[in-house]
């Protein structure tokens, strides 16, 4: 099954995206397609044996839209340049259109707004020289129609393809105005001077101008919704200094290949990911981790593209370039999230699919109803045009994706990577949140605090044997013991036999001595009596320390206690979450006493202790079975099953590890305050989406009946199609402007 992203052009409203989804979704071999109007991208999953990308692109082309493959390594600036070109083109079209629309409106309306005393040359007096007056309007309208020709080419093509869109409405509305006006000109030329009242050129001209203005503003505003991603993209340097045969060559970043040796001087940015070969320095990796304190780097350490080399000069070997760097992965993640759809958008998508035909139906019915009801053709035509022009499917289509774009972009700005619209939407529904203890609530870098031995066992001997057994262990407790032994310069012994007992400990044989290292449960299972050290063990646990029992020759030999430090932000974050009405729980494989001691420190009441990694997801399931929406916060590696089981998995860590794959939300920093921030961001975004949808629906629900003459029916005014066009343009822009309000979102501190 292949998955590809296509850049789509020619879409103007939600009906377009719905059309593409419908057409491509029907193709044999296409499993799933999601078209995003705001990002103008389509993500397609398809069976490569049944179809291919070229066929899909061709089919999209037949539907009246442009499609091209998005190359992973495509330069960031190209997209930006394309957007800028689009904005410039729209501005030019609007400018040309406005240059002719202003005099057109002046000539057409000037004589009617006599109180403003607009001087109209006598040879353009509509009653005395109606043909001059009409022909001038035709001449002024032609360039406007040329500027807005896309409404006609796309709009009518969409009608032919039986997928009318916003352009179709504009095209039909303005065509009706122009055709009727041309007929009026014909009548005038034949002596029916009253037909001068049937000229609607200025309506068509001003509608096109206003819609072009709306499209221009929409394009500018849309550009601002993706500023976050541009900021990320802008982080990457454009060139790198490559060392070849001992000489320095400055090359464009695209030419850097894996294995190149790169020189980075103080104050310069790291161009690609790699491993330090020579030199020491400190590097600001805040773009990746959010941590502002520079990280010390020496030979063998990883460096990441776009991070800032502070003070030393280093040589490093490129290991990941182009689209494979950590930065590129983050950008891809954010882009995918911005391009994804939230379930809340479904209703808007469904409505958009039927919107245009329904509006057209309403326009025709209203036209006929007024005409048959005795109103003039001009009156009925005004109604027809106003309905077609006021209806705005774009606002509906933009309501959700723009808010998601700004929301996820804003999250990325604060190091909160939300992996899609669905995650964003689900997050605001969370009512229970479970924190993993080690590495999440605590720093995850435990240290040995106490070493207790039974009579006959030396302290250093116990530490040396335990460290030998744990050497190579990735478990934080094991690492702490090994570190302690290293600190005390103890020489470690070779392990003859090793057996890991997941969630419990290990079983080893060193220098012929069989040893068991692990928790109380493991000791009990192996019938090893702990009575001699039980009291001391309890005291340690009450202090929040984790006791690791060490048995030699099936007999308890001692305890090495390890303690982890609670993160500075944990207490505040948990307090914030509780104040937000969320139930907070802690889950850990640690013994209950230690877990409760830590929980007490951070203010958590509900503690799920002594839970094996594989059972963590079951605990999540149990809470879900109670009807709760559960978020699991963990480090994303050993908590992976629980993260996957939870309604929302929140991984804490840098963007360089597996966490990015397993969670719904990745927190780049290890600051727990980002958890309430992520939830609040989700709430704000969903609220924004709801506001957008409300206004988009309300606008159409109110606007269309007014355009249909509802107010006129009760003695009120009739809506001029020009005002309808202005309202239509403003509706899209207002939805976008509302989405942009999310840019003001501030994280909790």
């Amino acid at each position, binding site marked *: 099954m292949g998955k590809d992203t296509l850049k789509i052009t020619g879409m103007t409203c939600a009906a377009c995206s719905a059309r593409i989804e419908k057409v491509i979704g029907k193709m044999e071999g296409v499993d799933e397609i999601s078209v995003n109007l705001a990002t103008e991208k389509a993500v397609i999953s398809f069976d490569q044996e049944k179809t291919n990308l070229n066929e899909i692109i061709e089919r999209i082309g037949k539907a009246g839209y442009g499609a091209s493959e998005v190359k992973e390594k495509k330069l960031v600036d190209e997209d930006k340049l394309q957007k800028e070109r689009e904005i410039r083109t729209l501005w*030019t079209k609007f*400018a*040309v259109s406005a*240059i*002719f629309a202003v005099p057109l409106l002046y000539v057409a309306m000037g*004589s009617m707004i*006599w*109180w403003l*005393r607009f001087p*109209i*040359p*006598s*040879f*353009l007096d509509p*009653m*005395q*020289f*109606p*043909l*001059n007056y009409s*022909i*001038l309007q035709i*001449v*002024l309208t*032609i*360039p406007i129609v*040329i500027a807005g020709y896309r409404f006609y080419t796309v709009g009518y093509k969409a009608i032919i393809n039986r997928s009318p869109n916003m352009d179709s409405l504009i095209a039909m509305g303005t065509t009706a105005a122009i055709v009727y006006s041309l007929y009026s000109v014909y009548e*005038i*030329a034949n*002596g029916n*001077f*009253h037909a001068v009242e049937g000229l609607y050129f200025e309506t068509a001209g001003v509608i096109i101008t206003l819609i072009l203005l709306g499209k221009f503003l929409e394009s500018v505003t849309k550009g601002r919704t993706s500023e976050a991603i541009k900021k990320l993209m802008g982080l990457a340097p454009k060139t790198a200094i490559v060392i070849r045969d001992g000489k320095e060559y400055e090359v464009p970043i695209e030419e850097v290949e894996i294995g190149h040796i790169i020189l980075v001087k103080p104050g310069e940015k790291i161009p690609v990911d790699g491993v330090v070969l020579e030199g020491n320095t400190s590097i600001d990796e805040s773009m990746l981790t959010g941590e502002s304190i520079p990280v010390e780097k020496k030979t063998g350490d990883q460096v990441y593209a776009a991070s800032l080399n502070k003070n030393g000069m280093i040589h490093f070997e490129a290991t990941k370039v182009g689209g494979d760097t950590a930065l590129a992965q983050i950008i891809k993640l954010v882009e995918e999230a911005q391009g994804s759809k939230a379930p809340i958008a479904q209703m808007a998508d469904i409505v958009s699919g039927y919107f245009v035909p329904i509006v057209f139906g309403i326009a025709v019915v209203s036209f006929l109803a007024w005409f048959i009801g005795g109103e003039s053709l001009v009156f009925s035509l005004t109604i027809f045009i106003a309905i077609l022009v006021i209806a705005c499917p774009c606002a509906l289509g933009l309501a959700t994706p723009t808010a998601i774009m700004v929301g996820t972009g804003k999250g990325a700005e604060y190091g909160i990577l939300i992996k899609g619209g669905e995650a964003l939407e689900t997050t605001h529904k969370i009512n229970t949140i479970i924190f993993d203890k080690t590495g999440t609530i605590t720093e995850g870098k435990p240290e040995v605090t106490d070493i207790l031995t039974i009579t006959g066992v030396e302290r250093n001997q116990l530490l040396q044997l335990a460290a030998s057994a744990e050497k190579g262990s990735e478990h934080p407790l094991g690492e702490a013991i090994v570190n302690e032994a290293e600190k005390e310069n103890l020489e470690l012994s070779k392990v003859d036999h090793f057996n890991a007992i997941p969630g419990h400990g290990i079983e080893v044989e060193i220098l012929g001595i069989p040893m068991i290292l692990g928790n109380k449960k493991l000791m009990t299972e192996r019938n090893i009596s702990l009575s001699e050290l039980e009291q001391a063990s309890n005291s340690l646990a009450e202090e929040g320390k984790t006791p690791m029992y060490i048995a030699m020759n099936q007999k308890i030999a001692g305890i090495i206690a390890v303690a982890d430090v609670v993160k500075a932000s944990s207490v505040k974050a948990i307090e914030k979450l509780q104040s937000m009405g969320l139930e907070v729980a802690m889950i850990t494989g640690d013994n209950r006493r230690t877990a409760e001691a830590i929980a007490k420190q951070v203010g958590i009441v509900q503690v799920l202790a002594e839970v094996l990694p594989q059972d963590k997801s079951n605990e999540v399931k149990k809470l879900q079975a109670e009807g709760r929406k559960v978020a699991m916060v963990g480090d994303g590696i050993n908590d992976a099953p629980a993260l996957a089981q939870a309604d929302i998995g929140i991984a804490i860590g840098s963007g360089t590890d597996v966490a990015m794959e397993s969670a719904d939300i990745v927190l780049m920093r290890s600051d727990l305050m980002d958890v309430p921030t992520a939830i609040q961001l989700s709430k704000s975004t969903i609220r924004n989406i709801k506001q957008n949808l409300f206004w988009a629906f309300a606008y159409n629900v109110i606007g269309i009946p007014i355009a249909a003459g509802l107010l006129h029916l009760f003695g009120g005014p009739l809506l001029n199609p020009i005002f309808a066009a202005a309202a239509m343009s403003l509706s899209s822009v207002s939805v976008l402007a509302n989405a942009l309000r999310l840019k003001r979102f501030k994280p909790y501190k």
Partner: protein
Amino acid sequence: MRKKILIITVSLLLILSLAACADTDVVGNESVDSFEKVLGAMENNVAEDEMNGGWALTSPDGRERFIWSKDYSAGTPHDVMLEFDAKPFIDAGLDVTKLPEGILIEDKIMVGSNLGDEELTYDGGATPIGSYEKLVELYRDRVKYHADLDHYGVDVGDGNMFEWAKDMGINDKDIVFVVDPKMFTDAGVDPVIVEGWVFAKVKVMDDAGKPIEVDKFLKPFSIQ
């Protein structure tokens, strides 16, 4: 940018050439055809007026005349004018001494304008319609279209007009003499009792294009 300039230039040229094109003056051209029909329908009431150097169209009751010049260089006081009986106005209280000089000639009131001093020449001799065509050609601003009544008209000056129906077949007022009442009311006329004339409000545009209603004496005739 070059495209933009090209479009703007071509459009401006089109506008200018259109403005200069007489063929687009449908009101002027149509008024000629229409006036010709009126003249045809009142053939016996159209005659040369040597005294005024032009042509006269007399109303069916013989009390009013619309006169238009056939040569503006002839030196007559008016090139376009209305002439009508003074009696109904005197009967309604007109103090003739209060009328401006030159308005009352014997028992007739004459209102009109001098348009210019051009010597008009005609192919094959002057005709009533030929002279009207010259009027349209040279003084188009004197020819009006009155949308409310679907009438064409010749503005003889000072708010006085001669109007005729664009389509006599569908209009009950085929010709109308329109006289501004101010001069008469200032001279003591009670406007509502002027025999044969209707004192009425008429919708017109002022100089700024503002629609206003003004008082007029109207004398309409159906000639078909």
